[in-house]
């Protein structure tokens, strides 16, 4: 059987399914509460699945298993950081945000600060974080489809990026939050079952003995026991060790500052449901990251890693092909197609969430509250959200096409670093520090945003790493004759996150704002008890 037909059929099935749930969801969407927050009527299980669907991105599925396949144990840091991070969201953010906000990250700041400047700042950082994240997903989609069609053609990748861009605009403009949520739920179920299947098939090859799998991975990697120990990727120098610390901090503090994750807490009726949905999400995400460990070491044990691409992004689909019977077998073709379709669904669900979040912030924060001073009707606001979704989709398409040489997991880690530097300090200070004020919020958001992005521009990622001695490829983004790098770390978190917190403190202490302190009483009562919190919409 020609495997390209199976693959194409499964991809189209995934697309058809997501379009179907989007159109169905659009029928029960009317006002802004429906459009932005799904009527706040999802159950904790549904929202837990959707959070998982929103969070487990192409970087998790393709990127982590690829990093473990190539660099062994060091790739495991991503899995651990991505999971432990959820405790910050569970303990400090989810419930309080549900009780004090309406639709966007900026809402809980606007509760007690000067609305227009803080909304502008929060919307800017929402859009920047979301676009970095979007790029990663779209680059992943291009790679995946090119692999499946067996062509390394730039035109095909560009067409796929274009297609994904139009689909995400469709999900958001037609289905709003309800459509997006259902796409994410479908994806979470597909991803969990698909990867569980491969995990079982991999473990079966090793008599369900983890030690045997690890031994085979160490042998086949050609690096021996070092492959199972920390340090292969990050242990070489002090700089690379600090990069490891920087990455770890960005991962663990970034999650609770990701705007597309934060707005999911608004889709349930109460703060208790927000807590329960995070508990479901932690269970789901934890199991999934244990799967990535097996997928990554499984790929290292069973595949000829020399044939993998340098970023390792395709290790998981190739592993599926191998456990199905290998290249040119029907079983292999079916599993390859299945896992690739699952990865594609993963990408679609994440881009939908990101597009919705950033366009909602543009419409609700910038258009309605900054430009129209809160006078826009719900209809106008939703109309602007649709335009914004189209505009953000087009920007993402235009940026993704030149960004294709970047590693997916790296782009996502960067989004985490920006979120942890610009968003998390303000969210925490706003909730827990009475004295915190508008100046502190602005300094922290803009300071964290500008410092993290600037440090990346002058990092080895952009320039100065030179030619890879093995592959002969340029390891930095800019041509090798341009070297503007002076910041030694690839991940800016180690510097920019403390700076974000510090600027928040200095900005606050340098000016008193009694009105903001006064309104903290109301914010705190509301956040802890739910008094006056937004209610679910009943249809």
């Amino acid at each position, binding site marked *: 059987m020609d495997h390209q037909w199976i693959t194409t059929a499964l991809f189209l099935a995934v697309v058809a399914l997501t379009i179907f749930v989007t159109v169905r969801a659009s029928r029960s969407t009317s006002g802004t509460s429906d459009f932005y927050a799904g009527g706040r009527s999802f159950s904790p299980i549904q929202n837990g699945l959707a959070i998982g669907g929103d969070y487990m991105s192409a970087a998790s599925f393709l990127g982590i298993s690829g990093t473990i396949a190539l660099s062994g144990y060091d790739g495991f840091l991503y899995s651990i950081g991505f999971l432990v991070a959820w405790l910050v969201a*569970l303990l400090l953010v989810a419930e309080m945000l549900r009780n004090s906000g309406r639709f966007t990250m900026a809402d809980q700041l606007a509760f007690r600060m000067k609305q227009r400047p803080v909304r502008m700042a929060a919307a800017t950082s929402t859009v920047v974080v979301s676009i970095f994240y979007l790029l990663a997903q779209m680059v992943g989609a291009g790679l995946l489809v090119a692999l499946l069609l067996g062509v390394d053609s730039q035109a095909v990748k560009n067409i796929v990026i274009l297609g994904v861009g139009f689909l995400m605009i469709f999900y958001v403009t037609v289905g709003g939050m309800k459509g997006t949520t259902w796409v994410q739920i479908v994806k979470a179920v597909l991803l969990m079952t698909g990867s569980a299947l491969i995990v079982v098939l991999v473990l079966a090859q090793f008599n369900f003995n983890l030690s045997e799998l690890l031994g085979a991975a160490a042998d086949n990697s050609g690096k021996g026991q070092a492959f199972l120990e920390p*340090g292969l990727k990050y242990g070489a120098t002090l700089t690379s060790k600090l990069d490891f610390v920087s990455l770890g901090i960005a991962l663990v503090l970034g999650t609770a500052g990701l705007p597309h994750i934060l707005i999911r807490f608004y889709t349930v009726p109460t703060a208790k449901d927000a807590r329960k949905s995070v508990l479901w999400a932690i269970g789901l995400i934890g199991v999934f990251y244990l799967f990535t460990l097996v997928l990554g070491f499984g790929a290292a044990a069973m595949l000829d890693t020399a044939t993998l691409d340098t970023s390792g992004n395709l290790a998981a689909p190739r592993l599926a092909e191998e456990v199905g019977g290998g290249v040119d077998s029907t079983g292999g073709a079916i599993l390859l197609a299945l896992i690739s379709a699952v990865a594609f669904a993963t990408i679609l669900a994440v881009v939908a969430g990101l597009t919705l979040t950033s366009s909602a912030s543009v419409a609700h924060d910038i258009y309605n509250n900054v430009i129209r001073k809160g006078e826009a009707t719900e209809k106008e606001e939703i109309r602007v959200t649709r335009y914004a979704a189209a505009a953000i989709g087009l920007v993402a398409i235009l940026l993704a096409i030149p960004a294709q040489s970047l590693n997916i997991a790296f782009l996502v880690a960067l989004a985490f670093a920006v979120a942890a530097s610009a968003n998390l300090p303000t969210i925490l200070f706003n909730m827990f520090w009475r004295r915190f004020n508008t100046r502190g919020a602005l300094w922290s958001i803009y300071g964290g945003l500008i410092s993290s992005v600037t440090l990346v521009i002058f990092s080895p990622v952009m320039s100065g790493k030179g030619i890879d001695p093995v592959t002969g490829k340029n390891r930095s983004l800019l041509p090798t004759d341009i070297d503007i790098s002076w910041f030694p770390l690839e991940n800016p978190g180690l510097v920019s996150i403390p700076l974000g917190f510090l600027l928040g403190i200095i900005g606050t202490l340098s000016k008193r704002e009694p009105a903001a302190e006064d309104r903290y009483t109301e914010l705190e009562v509301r956040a802890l008890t739910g008094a006056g919190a937004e209610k679910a919409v009943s249809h």
Partner: protein
Amino acid sequence: MVSDKDPSTDRAARHDPIYDAMAESPEFKELRHRYRAFVFPVTVAFLAWFLLYVVMSNWAESFMAQKVVGNINVALVFGLLQFVTTFLIAYAYSRYSATRLDPLADQLLHVYEEETR
């Protein structure tokens, strides 16, 4: 939220004096105390535990490389323990909220709803 706006300060207006009364009530002070008494120390603990993992991975390579059983070494066990502690803390917080926080929050919410009816 058109009605909440105070155009002179470009800031959401204060809603209701009831929030001040609630903030002063012993129930609220107790709720706030119980919430913070759990989340602050636990957050410090799990962040320190995670950082310890990162630091050990970097600077205690020979310890992390020790075999525990078969090919399973200390590093892997340490990593998996991060999963275990995450699940345990999530479970503990959910139990703590249900027994120590929710009843107080519900009681306060009830007062609010009665007063603003």
